């Protein structure tokens, strides 16, 4: 099978009057369709930059990013990006917020609206359709934000610490919830997080980055048996702490 996303020796630096900050250095990585990748690393190491590059908001300085085997700008790949905070607009109802992406891409039609409605239904938001976002709980807001992203039927879903603004308990629930949604919809996903446990519970493979400028220190494939294959069950799997230990050591040894 052909990889859906490839990084080929990608480097990137930020420029400001105070000087140049190298964010990513020589990143090479390929992601298969349907894979769930988690990216972990020290804070400020360039994880978000990685996502901005995939989405095309930033362009690599050297190297190349390929989507479906074609160069980033020409691939026509549809990329969904979920930011740290949900940014639901208070001046729109939940329904209108969820339709925002379709509206921007001029894809509002009977079919797309119907599919959004069925997602609202599946994920328990139908009752809040015409409410304002402030009526939603933190977890429901994240779900609404996810539906807004999924409404565009992205080939690749980028998640930038989407649970970091939630309190611990909600975070576990929403992680389970959203992880489940992404699996069920069969999406390729790349999750950036600094929460190691979150990465282990959700991903197929974990990419461990070094300090800035970020290089790939290690790519760790995860294997859980079928009895432990939802995020919450993974936490109690015997190999969970082994993986945790391994990533922790890898991050610690990074000078």
């Amino acid at each position: 099978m052909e990889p859906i996303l490839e990084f080929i020796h990608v480097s990137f630096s930020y420029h400001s009057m105070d000087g140049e900050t190298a964010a990513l250095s020589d990143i090479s990585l390929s992601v298969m369709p349907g894979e769930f990748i988690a990216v972990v690393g020290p804070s400020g190491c360039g994880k978000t930059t990685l996502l901005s590059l995939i989405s095309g908001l930033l362009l690599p300085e050297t190297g190349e990013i390929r989507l479906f085997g074609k160069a980033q700008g020409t691939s026509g790949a549809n990329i969904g990006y979920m930011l740290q905070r949900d940014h639901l607009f208070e001046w729109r109802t939940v329904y209108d917020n969820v339709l925002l992406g379709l509206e921007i891409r001029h894809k509002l039609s009977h079919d797309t609206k119907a599919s959004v409605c069925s997602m609202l239904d599946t994920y328990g938001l139908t009752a809040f359709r015409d409410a304002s976002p402030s009526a939603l709980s933190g977890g429901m807001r994240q779900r609404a934000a996810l539906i807004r992203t999924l409404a565009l039927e992205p080939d690749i879903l980028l998640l930038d610490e989407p649970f970091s603004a939630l309190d611990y308990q909600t975070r576990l629930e929403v992680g389970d919830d959203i992880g489940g949604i992404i699996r069920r919809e069969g999406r390729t996903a790349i999750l950036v997080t600094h929460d190691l446990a979150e990465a282990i519970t959700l991903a197929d493979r974990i990419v461990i980055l070094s300090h800035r400028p970020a290089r790939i220190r290690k790519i760790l494939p995860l294997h859980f048996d079928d009895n432990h294959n939802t995020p919450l069950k993974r936490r109690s799997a015997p190999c969970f702490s082994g993986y945790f230990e391994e990533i922790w050591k890898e991050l610690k040894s990074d000078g």
Partner: protein
Amino acid sequence: MDKPLSTAQANYLRARSRHRYVVLAGQLLLFILFVGSWEFFARLGLLNDFIFSSPSRMAKTFFEMAKDGSLFLHIGITLTETFGSFLLVMVIGLFTAMVLWGFPSLAELLEPYLVMLNSLPKSALAPVLIVWLGNNVKTIVAAAVSVAVFGSVMTLHTGFKQVDPDKIKLIYTLGGNRRDVLFKVLVPSAIPLIINNMKVNIGLCLVGVIIGEFLAANKGLGYLIIYGSQVFKMDIVMMSIVILCILSMIFYRIISLLEKKFAGKR
């Protein structure tokens, strides 16, 4: 609230509403005291009512001028000019702020000039405007617009620039362009700011219209004030000032109502 109120809550609410009535009564009392002592001292002759006028003389003038309809003509003219220039200021202000947001280099280029024009005392422009535009309503509207428009542009532009950059990023991640950012994020999120700016602008426009009418009018409240002072009919002057007070309060209230309606949930 479906639950019955606790005693403490009921007491609290009662205390709050009592407080409101006390303040209202105090405000009314202050008004009566002011108007009453003005009238009282004028009647006693301690206050020269030829110079200071008096509430009863103002009322008399009001009814005389109301009867022949001339007063409403003057008020109507001033109102029309104020609303007209207010609308112009809002349209020009919003449009220019959007353009400046869309072209940051242009904004950078124009910044010192905007600051200068904004702090320039606009009454200094009025004589120039008369020469350029003539002794007519164009001058008055131009004076009013010049008083408010530069500050409006700067306020709105600053407001646009302060919108959460992540909200803008969201639009881009959804595949939007700068146009989408402007109309889906900046303008809606700036509604409270725009309404606040309207409050300031309506007041400034009134100032500008009165300055304009002082110099270039034969109708309007500004004209009445100048005319009255020239022929030493202080009753007309004072009455016009009182009407201006009432008008500006009404403007403020109208926009507060708008604010309640549109800016509730942001």
